[in-house]
């Protein structure tokens, strides 16, 4: 008699813990063929609110960590991900070779971003030669708490939107791909075992249309990545809501995740701080 498998309960990831939705709700996740795979937690607006609180709480520590430390932690995430390649490939489903390549690309993407932690300031900062007796230096700084609506691509896409946000010191609340949320929760398990402080990344599964507007309107969220919103009306609504506290918005865009990502996903959620000081004796 074959052994009955022990299934995993897919929960949310908030503040480094794995709670169920406070609403007690879940929704059915199916495979490409329409078969039942799991019941994913269906996060509510209150879960989103809790996730923002966790992200805000984590912000001072994470943004205050040295870039070297952040880079090491992101690299550690890549190491942990590498160790679970088979699991992720299986969760992605589809042809095995293609799935494995997507997982490898996700690991490589993390490694790429990890290295940016202590280089972005050199590339995006500047020593400004002002016309006067002043030392004047511009440095990029993280915007704060960023809400991310993740794209449909459940792993490479997800990594490609989380990594640029957190590598610079932001913390985030991520709404995972609605149809393929399970790799996000497995990724949360990776994050939880990678020395990433709790609350830096918070993952919500559920309905994009239910969660995104609350995050877009939240007055303690500083940035909004709408890259994964495919419904133009929803995107419009979210961007309009985001105007209330002047969130920095990354607009929906179709992306080829295999390309060089460029800097735009990092720079969108960076502020430039310029410090002046007189030069004298």
């Amino acid at each position, binding site marked *: 008699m074959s052994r009955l498998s022990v299934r995993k309960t897919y929960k949310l990831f908030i503040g480094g813990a794995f709670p169920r939705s406070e609403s007690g709700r879940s929704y059915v996740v199916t495979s490409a063929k329409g078969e039942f795979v799991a019941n994913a937690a269906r996060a509510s607006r209150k879960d989103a609110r809790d996730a923002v609180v966790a992200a805000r709480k984590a912000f001072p520590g994470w943004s205050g960590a040295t870039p070297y430390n952040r880079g090491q932690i992101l690299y550690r995430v890549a190491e942990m991900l590498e160790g679970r390649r088979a699991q992720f490939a299986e969760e992605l489903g589809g042809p095995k070779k293609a799935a494995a390549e997507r997982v490898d690309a996700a690991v490589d993407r993390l490694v790429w971003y990890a290295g940016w932690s202590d280089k972005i300031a050199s590339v995006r900062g500047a020593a400004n030669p002002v016309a006067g*007796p*002043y030392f004047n230096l511009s440095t990029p700084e993280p915007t704060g708490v960023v809400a991310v609506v993740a794209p449909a691509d459940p792993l490479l896409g997800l990594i490609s939107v989380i990594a640029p946000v957190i590598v610079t010191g932001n913390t985030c609340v991520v709404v995972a791909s609605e149809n393929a949320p399970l790799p996000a929760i497995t990724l949360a398990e990776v994050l939880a075992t990678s020395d990433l402080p709790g609350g830096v990344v918070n993952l919500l599964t559920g309905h994009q249309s239910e969660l995104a507007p609350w995050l877009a309107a939240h007055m303690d969220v500083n940035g909004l990545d709408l890259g994964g919103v495919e419904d133009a009306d929803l995107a419009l609504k979210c961007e309009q809501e985001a105007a209330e506290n002047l969130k920095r918005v990354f607009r929906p865009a179709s992306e080829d995740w295999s390309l060089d990502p460029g800097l735009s996903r990092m720079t969108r959620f960076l502020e430039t701080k310029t410090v002046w000081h*007189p*030069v*004298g*004796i």
Partner: protein
Amino acid sequence: MTTSLADVAASATTLRAFLHGLPGVDRVGADQRAAMLGTRSIKTTAKAQAIDLAISMVDLTTLEGADTHGKVRAMCTKAMRPGGGAPRVAAVCVYPDLVAVAAETVKGSGVKVASVATAFPSGRSSLEVKVSDTALAVAAGADEIDMVIDRGAFLEGHYLKVFEEIVAVKAACGQAHLKVILETGELATYDNVRRASWLAMIAGADFIKTSTGKVAPAATLPVTLIMLEAVRDFRDATGRQVGVKPAGGIRTTKDAIKNLVLVNETAGADWLTPEWFRLGASSLLNDLLMQREKLATGRYAGPDYFTLD
């Protein structure tokens, strides 16, 4: 002096602690404030008032090795009657050995005789020499003594030594007023200018003076600004008013008026008299007279019309 500052010079330690506890001076900010005040536009009636005020504040100075009785007498004559109905200057300033001739010449005119003493300009001699240098000048009839501080001791941090020298010279002055020359060009930083100002005032200076005129930079606007802040704050703290004398490098009417603006907007109107503010200068006087003439006649003046004594 109120009790709050009486104990400051009780020991080298207390004096040092006090001077180092004074607020710092940001050089760039001080320079900008002085430069901004330098943009004040003083025209027409205000300019006329300023020119006469400036003339009345001049310490007409000659401090050359080649100074003679004749040179000093000529300068004193001009000091009393600069010409064109201009007011007399505040004082003449000469070396100690020429005080007697200066005092005799200006006698009864109201023009004071000031003398640089204390091994001017370097101050590199013993306290005994400095005190006797001072006593000599006072005995010869000097109303005011312009002493130099020991910049070497100051830069070494031997503030008490500088303090005690000022006290000793002040004692030797008797009734004569004591102007203490900081030689700010050698103190190098504005923090030092502020400390030296307070040091001199605590030690009993009646005036603090920027420079000997023998070291560049001399009386820059920011240095005068800092010294004006010092006398203002000193009066607030102790109730005693101390005068300020920028000297060296003030050559034009514009320079002089900038100084008056500085006084007006820093220490205030109480200092805008020859009793509390002086301009140590020589060639400045003729430029003031030329500008005065221009205001009176509406024509630009020429140097041939002004005496060169």
